[in-house]
């Protein structure tokens, strides 16, 4: 790799970083369920990433690298927090429980339902399913971000989607039934 390529790669990484705040925020929100914490994590990730952007020499690896930094910030947060903080953070999590089928025409309710279902997944599954579905990272990239084997990514994803499917699709059936009943009345 020439010096020119290296310089261009680092510059491109800086530019990509500037555009990454929302994506980081969404991912952090999916992982934590807490908007304020998600914003803090996104900011911390950006700060660290800006300092280290020169390390990214291959722009194609930028996404994986960026989310690995976010993952690192999140792990550090989990290690730092005190037991009493756990209860406090739970209060900020997205509401548990599903909205009724009648509300599902409202897109906000659909989002809330899906987010609540994702929030109830175990940490590892939640991270894998959000990295794959929200960001479209490949299994190999997710394995790199989380430092786990690709096989683990595949099995966690499988279990996560199975759990989500059983929770979300039951509600879909109720929704369809509810719509049918309304049209009969």
């Amino acid at each position, binding site marked *: 790799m020439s010096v020119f390529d290296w310089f261009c790669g680092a510059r491109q990484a800086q530019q990509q970083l500037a555009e990454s705040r929302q994506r980081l925020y969404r991912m952090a929100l999916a992982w934590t369920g807490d*908007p304020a914490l998600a914003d803090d994590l996104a900011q911390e990730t950006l700060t660290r990433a800006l300092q280290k952007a020169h390390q990214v020499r291959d722009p194609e690896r930028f996404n994986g690298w960026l989310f690995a930094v976010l993952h690192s910030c999140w792990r550090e947060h989990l290690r730092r927090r005190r037991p009493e903080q756990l209860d406090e953070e739970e209060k900020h999590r997205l509401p548990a429980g599903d909205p009724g089928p009648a509300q599902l025409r409202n897109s906000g309710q659909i989002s809330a339902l899906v987010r609540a279902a994702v929030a109830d997944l175990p940490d590892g599954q939640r991270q894998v399913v959000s990295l794959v579905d929200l960001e479209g990272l490949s299994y190999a990239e997710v394995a790199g971000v989380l430092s786990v084997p690709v096989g683990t990514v595949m099995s966690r994803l499988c279990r996560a*989607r199975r759990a989500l*499917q059983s929770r979300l699709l039951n509600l879909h059936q109720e929704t369809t039934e509810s719509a049918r009943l309304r049209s009969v009345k």
Partner: protein
Amino acid sequence: MKSLSELDEISINALLDGELDGDERAILLERLANEPELRGAHSRLAITRDLVAHAWDDAEPPYREKYPPQRRRRRFAVAAAMILLMVGFFAGRVMGPETVVGVPSSAETSQGQSDQVIVHIMDADPARQRAALDRVENLLAEGYHRVELVAHSEALDLLRSDRSADAGRVRELISAHPDLRLFACGNTIARIERQGERVQLIEGIVRASSAVDHIVDRLQNGWHYIKA
């Protein structure tokens, strides 16, 4: 519902996520064509994946002063458009029949299911808009009796007499197919007109009060949904 082996589930996930190579993909697609249980599982997993993929579309980080108001408005508009897309897509997945390619097959029609299709376009790209018109034409050629196209957001241009790159083709479609209905989203028109721009639709285009409401109504009446 028969339960699937974990290996099959992993394979279907890999197919959905573009992780299978050519041979693996071909084998699985052939199995999907021949095994209804597998096809059902594919549809359910696809719905699940799509719901998760769009569940955070409207999540905006808290406002920070570095974003000027105009940019914030644009960001809000983009988020709103994404929510709209999600509703349409969700409703289509939930209430429409599922096929591997997302298009109702002639086999489904022959089994007595709905032969009414609504095609939804919201993309500004003229190539995608032309692809939507191609899709409409193909459906009509395949014998679907009721076909509707709904355009909103940036795709509204397709149906505007003053801006459409394909106005001639749209007119020809309308005159050649009396049962075809093309709808422009009333909310999008109102938003544009609030900004001081007058919207002129091609003759024969129907103004729907809202694209999403129209799509949801159709789906509740058993129409197929296709996002172009």
